[in-house]
C-alpha cells in the first residue's frame, strides 16, 4: 500500500520502517521540515549534538557497538561540510552510516544561495555512495536503497542530500518491501575451489598465523564465533589489527596480541616468520605491513575479503578468497572437518612464538612517583575487567597503549579511529555507544589534545545523561607527534606542547559533570573506582609521565623483524627512506 505524505514525513517514516531508533543531528534552515516531523512523533529519538562532526562520530560509535547502521541528520552548507571528517572516517573504517543533509530548494541549486554547498560533490569521495533527491516521489525508495548500500558488501557511509522543497512537497511513500531490488548485490559466498584450496593450505602449514581485521567484526557476531571455533580447532596462532580487536578473545589460547607499527613483538615476528598467512577481513594497511619488500618474505598468503579492490592492492597474495567473512569461515570449517580435521605439527612454531613472548615487549620502567600511562591502563583494565564495558579512544599514543594494555573478549566492544586517525573521534563516539547501551560502562581513553577537539560534546553528554567516562592520559603534549620529533627531528618539539590547558576538573564542573584529577600512582585505584561508581559523565584528568614513548615500534620504512623495543635503540631509528612516510 502506498501513501501520500510530505518528503519530510517520508524521511521519518522510512527511518521507522528501517528500524532506526536513534538519530544524531543538528538542525538548521534547510532541514527544518524534517525536524518538525521529528518533533511530532516519539518512535525515533533525536540526539542534539554540539557540532556536526560529533553527530557523525556518535553515529559511528552507535553503529560499531550495535552492528546496526548509524543515522545522522545535518543541515546544508556548513552542516554538511562539518560532517565530512566523520564521513571520511567511516569510509576508511567501513562503518555503515546513513547521513541526511539539508539542501537549498532545487530551484536555487547553483545560485550560491545562503548555506548552499555542493554537498554531493564534496562528499562523493568520502562516501560509499550519495544521492541528491530532486523528486519527492523517489525519496522513500532512495532512503531504502541507501540503507541497503550502507549495510551490504563492505559497509560504509552514504549520504542523502534533501533540498528543502522536496521535504515540503507531497509524494507517494513506498515501504521497504515494495522498493525496487537494487542491482548492487556483492558476492558473499566464496567459490568452492577457493575454500578447498584454503583448507589444503591449512592442512599442510607448519608455521601458520591468522591475521584478522575489522571485516570479521563487520560480518557480525556469528563471524566472530566461527573464527573462534576455527582458531581453537586448528590450534593456530592469531593476531589482529587495531580494528579487529575483540573478534577473537584476548584470553583465548591462540591470541598473540595486536600486530603492526605498535603491535606486539611476538605478533609481528610471527607475521614475518610464518609459512602460511591467512588474512581474514584485514587490508594490509601500511600500519601493518612496514616495508613492503620485506613483508613476510617466506609465506603463502591468503586474503579473505568481501571487497575485490582490497586484493593485491598492497601485498600480492597467493590465494584471494572473495566473500563475506562469516560465509567463508562457515564453509572452511565445514570442508576442513569433512576432510578429517587435519593439521600439521605446529609445536615447533609455538615453541618459537613462546621464545618471542619471553621478550616481554610491553615491559616499561615503573615509577612510584609518577603515573606511567601504561600503568594507568593496566589499572583501568584490572578494575574494569569482567564488567559490561565498552571502550572508545581518541588518536595517538594513548590509543596504542589502550590497544596494548586493554583486553577485549568480545566484538563490538572497542571503537577507535583506525584508518583516518581522527583526533576528536573518541568522545562523541563514546556518547553514541552509551546511548545505544544505557546500562553499560563506556570509557573513552583519551589524550588531552585529542579530547579538546570535540570537548563541546560535554553539553550533549549532560543533556542526555550519558554517563560516559573520559579517561584522559594528560601528558601536556601531543605525545605521538613529540615521539616522532624525538626520533626523527632532532628533539625539536615544534608545536607539540599542549600549552594553556584548561583545568579539567573545573571544566567538568562548569558543565555540571564530575571532574577527578589524579597524579599519584598510589591514589589511582581509588580515583578510577570513583570514576566508575559515579552516576554521570566524568572527566578523569590523569596526569601521566610527560615524555613516555610508545613501544614496541616498527619505525617507518622498516620491516616487522626490525622492531624497536625500548628507548635504548631509538637513536637514528628512522632512515631517510622512511622519513618521508607518515
Amino acid at each position: 500500500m502506498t501513501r501520500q505524505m510530505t518528503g519530510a514525513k517520508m524521511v521519518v517514516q522510512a527511518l521507522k520502517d528501517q528500524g532506526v531508533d536513534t538519530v544524531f543531528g543538528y538542525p538548521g534552515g534547510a532541514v527544518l521540515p524534517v525536524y518538525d516531523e521529528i518533533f511530532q512523533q516519539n518512535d525515533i529519538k533525536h540526539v542534539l549534538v554540539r557540532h556536526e562532526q560529533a553527530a557523525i562520530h556518535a553515529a559511528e560509535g552507535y553503529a560499531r557497538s550495535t552492528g546496526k547502521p548509524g543515522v545522522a541528520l545535518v543541515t546544508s552548507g556548513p552542516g554538511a561540510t562539518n560532517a565530512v571528517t566523520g564521513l571520511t572516517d567511516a569510509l576508511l573504517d567501513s562503518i555503515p552510516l546513513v547521513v541526511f543533509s539539508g539542501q537549498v530548494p532545487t530551484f536555487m541549486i547553483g545560485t550560491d544561495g545562503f548555506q548552499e554547498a555542493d554537498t554531493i560533490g564534496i562528499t562523493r569521495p568520502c562516501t560509499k555512495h550519495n544521492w541528491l533527491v530532486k523528486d519527492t516521489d523517489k525519496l522513500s525508495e532512495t532512503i531504502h536503497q541507501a540503507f541497503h548500500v550502507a549495510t551490504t558488501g563492505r559497509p560504509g557511509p552514504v549520504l542523502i542530500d534533501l533540498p528543502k522543497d522536496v521535504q515540503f512537497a507531497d509524494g507517494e511513500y513506498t515501504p521497504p518491501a515494495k522498493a525496487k531490488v537494487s542491482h548492487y548485490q556483492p558476492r558473499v559466498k566464496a567459490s568452492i575451489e577457493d575454500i578447498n584450496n584454503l583448507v589444503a593450505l591449512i592442512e599442510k602449514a607448519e608455521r601458520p598465523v591468522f591475521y584478522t581485521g575489522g571485516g570479521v567484526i563487520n560480518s557480525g557476531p556469528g563471524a566472530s564465533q566461527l573464527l573462534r571455533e576455527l582458531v581453537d580447532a586448528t590450534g593456530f596462532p592469531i593476531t589482529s589489527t587495531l580494528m579487529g580487536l575483540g573478534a577473537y578473545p584476548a584470553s583465548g589460547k591462540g591470541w598473540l596480541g595486536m600486530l603492526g607499527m605498535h603491535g606486539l613483538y611476538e605478533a609481528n615476528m610471527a607475521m614475518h616468520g610464518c609459512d602460511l598467512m591467512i588474512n581474514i577481513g584485514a587490508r594490509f594497511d601500511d600500519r601493518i605491513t612496514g616495508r613492503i619488500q620485506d613483508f613476510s618474505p617466506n609465506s603463502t598468503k591468503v586474503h579473505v575479503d568481501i571487497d575485490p579492490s582490497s586484493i593485491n592492492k598492497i601485498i600480492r597474495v597467493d590465494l584471494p578468497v572473495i566473500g563475506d567473512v562469516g560465509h567463508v569461515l562457515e564453509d572452511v570449517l565445514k570442508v576442513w572437518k569433512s576432510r578429517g580435521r587435519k593439521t600439521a605439527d605446529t609445536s615447533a612454531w609455538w615453541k618459537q612464538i613462546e621464545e618471542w613472548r619471553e621478550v616481554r615487549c610491553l615491559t616499561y620502567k615503573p615509577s612510584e612517583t609518577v603515573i606511567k600511562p601504561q600503568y594507568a591502563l593496566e589499572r583501568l583494565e584490572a578494575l574494569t575487567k569482567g564488567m559490561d564495558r565498552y571502550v572508545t579512544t581518541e588518536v595517538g599514543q594513548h590509543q596504542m597503549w589502550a590497544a596494548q594494555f586493554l583486553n577485549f573478549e568480545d566484538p563490538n566492544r572497542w571503537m577507535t579511529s583506525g584508518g583516518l586517525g581522527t583526533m576528536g573521534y573518541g568522545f562523541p563516539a563514546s556518547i553514541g555507544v552509551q546511548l545505544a547501551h544505557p546500562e553499560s560502562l563506556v570509557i573513552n581513553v583519551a589524550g588531552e589534545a585529542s579530547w579538546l577537539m570535540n570537548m563541546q560534546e560535554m553539553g550533549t553528554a549532560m543533556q542526555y545523561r550519558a554517563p560516559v567516562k573520559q579517561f584522559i592520559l594528560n601528558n601536556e603534549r601531543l605525545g605521538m607527534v613529540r615521539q616522532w620529533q624525538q626520533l626523527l627531528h632532532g628533539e625539536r618539539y615544534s608545536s607539540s606542547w599542549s600549552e594553556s590547558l584548561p583545568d579539567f576538573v573545573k571544566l567538568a564542573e562548569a558543565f555540571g559533570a564530575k571532574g577527578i584529577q589524579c597524579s599519584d600512582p598510589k591514589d589511582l585505584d581509588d580515583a578510577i573506582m570513583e570514576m566508575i561508581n559515579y552516576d554521570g559523565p566524568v572527566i578523569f584528568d590523569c596526569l601521566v609521565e610527560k615524555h613516555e614513548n610508545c613501544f614496541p615500534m616498527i619505525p617507518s620504512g622498516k620491516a616487522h623483524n626490525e622492531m624497536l623495543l625500548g628507548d635504548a635503540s631509538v637513536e637514528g631509528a628512522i632512515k631517510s627512506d622512511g622519513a618521508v612516510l607518515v
Partner: protein
Amino acid sequence: MSALRIQQGSTSHSAYDLRDYHAEVIEKHTLAVLVDNEAGVLARVIGLFSGRGYNIESLTVAEVNHDSHLSRITVVTTGTRDVIEQIKAQVGRIVPVHEVHDLTVEGPSIERELALFKVEGTGNNRIEALRLAEIFRANVVDSTLESFVFEMTGTSEKIDAFAELMRPLGLVETARTGVAALARGSHV
C-alpha cells in the same frame, strides 16, 4: 630529490611500496564500463581516477540503452598490470557500475575514434592535403577556398598518423572523440 626514489607522476599508489616501479612494464588497456545513467556518475568514475592517481588517456561516454538508462563509458588507461587490476576492481565497486570489461585482455576487440581536422592552405599544400585525405579515407565535411574540414574514423594510431601528415600542410585545429570500443564476435 625524493628520498623514495619514486619518479614523480609514478602510478604507484602506496608510498609504502618502495619497489622500483620502472622495472615493470606500463600497459595500455581499454575498459568498457556499463553504468546507470544517473546524475554525477561520470564524476564518480573520473574522481576515482584522479583521486587515486590513475591515468586517463581517453574517455567517451553516452547513453546506450534508453529503456534501462544504461550508459557506456570507454576509458583508455595506462599502468602496470597490478595498477590496471586495481583500477578495474576500484571502478567495479562504484555502486551505479554494473559491469567492467577489460577489452584489451578479454579477446579481440574493435577500437574506433572519430576526429575532425581543420586544414588551412592554398596551392600545392591544399592539393596534397586532399590527396592524403583520400588515401586515409577521410571525408571533406566543410570547405572554403582556403580550408577544409576533414572527418575521419579509425584507430587512434591511424588518426595520429593522419594528424602528423597534415601538420606541415596547414593543420590548425583538431577535435577527437576518444575511443569507442566493442569486443569482436557475436557474444556480448
